[in-house]
């Protein structure tokens, strides 16, 4: 099973830093770790507290310290606010593997929601009391999910949204969240984690007084499902006699297929005797336009488009209309992305007469891999051919 991780956050109105912090990592064995922490108060102080808590937890879990133990160490060591007598940061930590084994530890955050399709499920937990602070308890869950299940985590900014308003005297509450999740998932069964997280946060904001966030609002979602795969073929292969093999690998790939590169597209076209068409469009912006070929979902120019796509991904510009925007959309609609990178170098790209500097393909692909993994929680593999 693939674990699709998505998160969306809003700052408390007029603050300049997020008081909630979300971190997620996926290790080589397919284990996914995610932590959502809410720092006391808001703004930069809360940001530091929640960032510290989330980072420590993720590090512990990465080093395979059992989740219960890691949470206990943090709970025992986290300071308590002198004035309010509550802990400086609350957290939810989850560890999930590809078989659907889940372990969750919560301290202070609203309890997560486990949805099987559009039906909420109940999970049993054990409570552990902090040794040094008996009023602090953490809940430990261990259970198994199935394909199609979702785990939804949120900060109290969601459950307390709109508190004091006529329609929500006690806030949006867990009941509000549950019925919202049920109707949203029933309406769109295949909704992605990031879309669902965004809808939850938007809904919470909608409940708020004057639609302004009175607290940091965060939601993180883990969806367990069949992975959507994509293959991107870019750059001519080093060994010319293998061109045909790679061309076939592309068009028979079980998933979505893209070519980034004019020469690469020509190779596929030549080897498989399939025509490429490139409509001449006048308004195309600063990048060469898209081309079309049977059985290939997307064809773009190579290095310029890839470089631009990297920029869009890093800056979070996800709705651009040019070829790089189409590539970004292609990449983000997949979970597992394979890059088949040809090692042949086009000398003409490094002609000093060129008015701009062209990056080396490998570097760009490595950067794209990094940003896709760290910022968009994708699984990316690079194969050099």
């Amino acid at each position, binding site marked *: 099973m693939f674990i699709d991780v998505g998160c969306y956050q809003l700052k408390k109105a007029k603050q300049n830093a997020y008081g909630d912090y979300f971190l997620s990592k996926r290790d080589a064995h397919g284990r996914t770790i995610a932590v959502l922490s809410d720092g006391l108060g808001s703004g930069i102080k809360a940001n530091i507290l929640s960032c510290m808590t989330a980072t420590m937890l993720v590090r512990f879990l990465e080093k395979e310290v059992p989740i219960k133990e890691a949470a206990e160490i943090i709970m025992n060591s986290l300071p308590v606010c002198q004035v309010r007598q509550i802990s400086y940061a609350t957290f939810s930590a989850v560890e999930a593997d590809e078989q659907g084994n889940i372990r969750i530890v919560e301290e202070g955050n609203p309890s997560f929601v486990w949805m099987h399709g559009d039906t909420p499920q109940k999970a049993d937990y054990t409570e552990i009391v902090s040794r040094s602070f008996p009023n602090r308890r953490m809940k430990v869950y261990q259970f198994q999910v199935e394909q199609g299940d979702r785990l939804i985590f949120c900060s109290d900014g969601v459950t307390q949204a709109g508190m004091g308003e006529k329609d929500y005297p006690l806030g949006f509450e867990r009941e509000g969240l549950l019925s919202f999740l049920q109707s949203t998932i029933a309406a769109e069964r295949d909704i992605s984690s990031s879309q669902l997280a965004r809808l939850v946060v938007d809904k919470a904001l909608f409940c708020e007084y004057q639609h302004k966030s009175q607290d940091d609002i965060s939601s993180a979602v883990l969806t367990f499902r069949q992975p959507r795969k994509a293959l991107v073929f870019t750059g001519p292969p080093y060994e010319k006699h293998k061109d045909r093999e790679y061309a076939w690998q592309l068009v028979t790939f079980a998933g979505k297929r893209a070519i980034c*590169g*004019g*020469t690469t*597209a*020509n190779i596929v076209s030549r080897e498989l005797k399939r025509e*490429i068409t*490139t*409509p*001449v469009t*006048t308004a*195309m912006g*600063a*990048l*060469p*336009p898209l*081309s079309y070929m049977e059985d290939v979902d997307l*064809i773009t*120019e*190579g*290095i*310029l488009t890839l470089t631009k796509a990297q920029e869009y991904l890093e800056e979070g510009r996800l709705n651009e209309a040019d070829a790089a925007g189409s590539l970004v959309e292609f990449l983000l609609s997949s979970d597992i992305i394979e890059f088949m990178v040809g090692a042949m170098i*086009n*000398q*003409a*790209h490094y*002609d000093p*007469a*060129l*008015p*701009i500097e*062209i990056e080396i393909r490998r570097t760009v692909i490595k950067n794209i891999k990094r940003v896709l993994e760290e910022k968009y929680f994708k699984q990316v593999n690079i194969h050099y051919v």
Partner: protein
Amino acid sequence: MKPIKIEICLGTTCFVMGGETLQNMGDMLKKKYGAKIEVEAVRCLEVCSSDNFSKAPYARVDGEVIGEASLEKVQAVIEKKLNHE
């Protein structure tokens, strides 16, 4: 009479060296010559890496590769072909 086929290269090198302006050329040529020509964009003519041709950007008119292609150069070749016939 078969229309003259004009291919404009939109490979990386050509695009960087002026393919973007060449593309607008397609419209201008089409306006001037109408049905006598056929304009197409191609992904890469694969001539930039060979030294046999002068310099990017490239265009191809009925199979004839034009280096450092510009509106004037391409037009000159089209005129030559039209007059020849």
